[in-house]
């Protein structure tokens, strides 16, 4: 009841309730065999992209900084998750426990990477963060392309460049990527991860940390003058964002039998950015809806794939340019008021 009293927690509960009902309906449809195969194959990716969009929204929408290396964090999560699950797979039978451990390890490592990347960059002004995270994504892809990890009775072996000397079976095999022996990602685990992510982010945004981050975004100098350690709070948000992207990466990888490093390229980062922009920066509900739509849409529209990235580009530009256009904003406000009037008139008529 205490939750219901405050407006923000009420809003949060509504978001959670609506999302869980929607996902439960999908779950029911899927297990009932009603869904088309192409759509049913998209269920786990939908969850993955919801988590990705939510976590990027924390950086872009709440913190007001642009991260273009989100796919990099995702790949760190994915590859470390695969290694962890394969290693632990012999001793742990329960797929749920295995998946949970995998996600935690993936998230931890991605978070550490976020921390390391944050040290040089978060002290600096905005544009640099974008370019450094982009560079970071490329570095990770580069490194994963020449990383080899094998497993045998003695445990893990790893090498850079020349994997041929390693004994045992490959988990990560350079450019060919990671091979997954047990695909334990299910829509169920996806739903759980989405819910956990949503709760963590909503609570974070409404905590004193979230308030501090919004204050820093609004006016950095004033925030410093009231005793906020700007870098520390940016770091908290950035690491959390990276860790959640890592968790999404584990969920993503465990859904396939093999996964290549080049899967996590700049395109992936941009797709997630489009979801955040389309859903509204700082708007968590919007990110969720945009993530679902943009994951399902390409499957439904054939031939869309050729034009997909072109349309994404246009969407990015249009949203920004129209967002800055005062006449368009005025038009939006008048339209909203007209709609409101119409609704209220109808209700009055009743």
């Amino acid at each position: 009841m205490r939750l219901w009293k405050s407006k923000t927690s009420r809003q949060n509960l509504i978001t959670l309730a609506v999302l869980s009902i929607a996902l439960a309906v999908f779950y029911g449809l899927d297990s009932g065999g009603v869904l088309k195969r192409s759509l049913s194959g998209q269920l786990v990716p939908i969850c993955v992209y919801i988590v990705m969009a939510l976590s990027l929204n924390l950086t872009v929408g709440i913190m007001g900084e642009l991260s273009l290396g989100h796919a990099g964090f995702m790949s760190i999560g994915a590859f470390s998750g695969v290694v962890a699950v394969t290693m632990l797979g012999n001793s742990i039978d329960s797929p749920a426990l295995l998946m949970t451990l995998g996600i935690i390890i993936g998230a931890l490592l991605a978070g550490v990477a976020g921390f390391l990347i944050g040290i040089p960059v978060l002290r600096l002004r905005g544009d640099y963060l974008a370019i450094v995270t982009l560079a970071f994504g490329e570095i990770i892809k580069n490194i994963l392309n020449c990383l080899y990890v094998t497993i045998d009775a003695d445990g893990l072996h790893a090498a850079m460049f020349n994997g041929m000397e390693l004994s045992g079976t490959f988990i990560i095999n350079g450019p060919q990527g990671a091979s997954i022996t047990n695909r334990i990602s299910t829509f169920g685990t996806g739903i759980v991860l989405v819910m956990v992510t949503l709760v963590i982010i909503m609570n974070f945004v409404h905590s004193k940390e979230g308030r501090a981050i919004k204050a820093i975004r609004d006016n950095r100098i004033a925030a410093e003058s009231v005793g906020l350690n700007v870098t520390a709070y940016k770091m908290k948000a950035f690491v959390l964002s990276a860790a959640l992207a890592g968790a999404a990466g584990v969920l993503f990888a465990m859904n396939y039998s093999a996964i290549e490093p080049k899967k996590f390229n700049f395109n992936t980062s941009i797709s997630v950015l489009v979801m955040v922009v389309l859903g509204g920066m700082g708007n968590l509900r919007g990110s969720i809806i945009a993530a679902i739509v943009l994951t399902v849409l390409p499957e439904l529209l054939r031939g869309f794939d050729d034009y997909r990235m072109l349309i994404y580009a246009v969407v990015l530009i249009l949203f920004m340019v129209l967002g800055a256009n005062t006449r368009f904003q005025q038009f939006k406000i008048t339209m909203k008021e007209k709609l409101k009037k119409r609704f209220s008139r109808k209700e009055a008529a009743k």
Partner: protein
Amino acid sequence: MAFLSNLINGLSLGSVFAIIALGYTMVYGIAKMLNFAHGDVIMIGAYVSFVTITSMDVPPLLALLIAMCVCTILGVVIERLAYRPLRSSPSLAVLITAIGVSYLLQNAALLIWSSNTKVYPSIVTFEPLHLFGGALTIRGETIVSICTCIVVMIGLTLFTGKTKTGKAMRAVSENRQAAELMGISVNRTIAVTFAIGSALAAVAGVLYCSMYPVLIPTTGSIPGIKAFTAAVLGGIGSIPGTLVGGLLLGIIEIFGRAYISQDLSDAIVFAVLIIILLVKPNGLLGKKVTEKV
């Protein structure tokens, strides 16, 4: 001798980086924005010259001129349609738009020219130089790119220092409002900056593809980011800084490839970026900017 050869190759690659980085530096200095699409203008320049050379049999120099014209127009149009409406918006919005433009160019190129690799015919026709009895070979492209870089640098320094438009550029970069009050058209000055930067991008595109003749729609993006790194290394906003940064980065890349690892050369260059930002965020020749409170 291998060392000397690497050094010269590094200088030549660095010259191209420096020419690209000029576009970043000028736009960053004057419009205070990171023009993410600059790398893709390079790619468009390369494609335009490729098409004119291969299918219209245009002589290379004319092709270069055509590419420069197309890129100039492209740069001005991009500025007018995408960036000018956002002049007073937060930098995050401008940055996202720039990424959108970059993606638009890449995907438009993909639709027009397909993803098939084009083999770029070098525009340099004269023979390589053989020194020390053949122990050291210097390609014609190498000489041309280094010379072009020197010419461009001198030309641009004179332009910003001596001409009226150049002075207007410096005024706008110092203080936009004050410049406007002095009767300088900020919009026109920024448009000119984009025009010059884009024309240089075309030159860089032709030179880069003459050295590495692989042309695909994403050809421009990695050199673009590397050139940005060069601009940051030298100190963004400073023309001599760009030259120093570009040359250094070119040498770092070639030496990284030769002595560390072929596969990790990109990673090495980007690691340099991160290290500079950590150690000397204003770059080697950049000046410290204090925020007004």
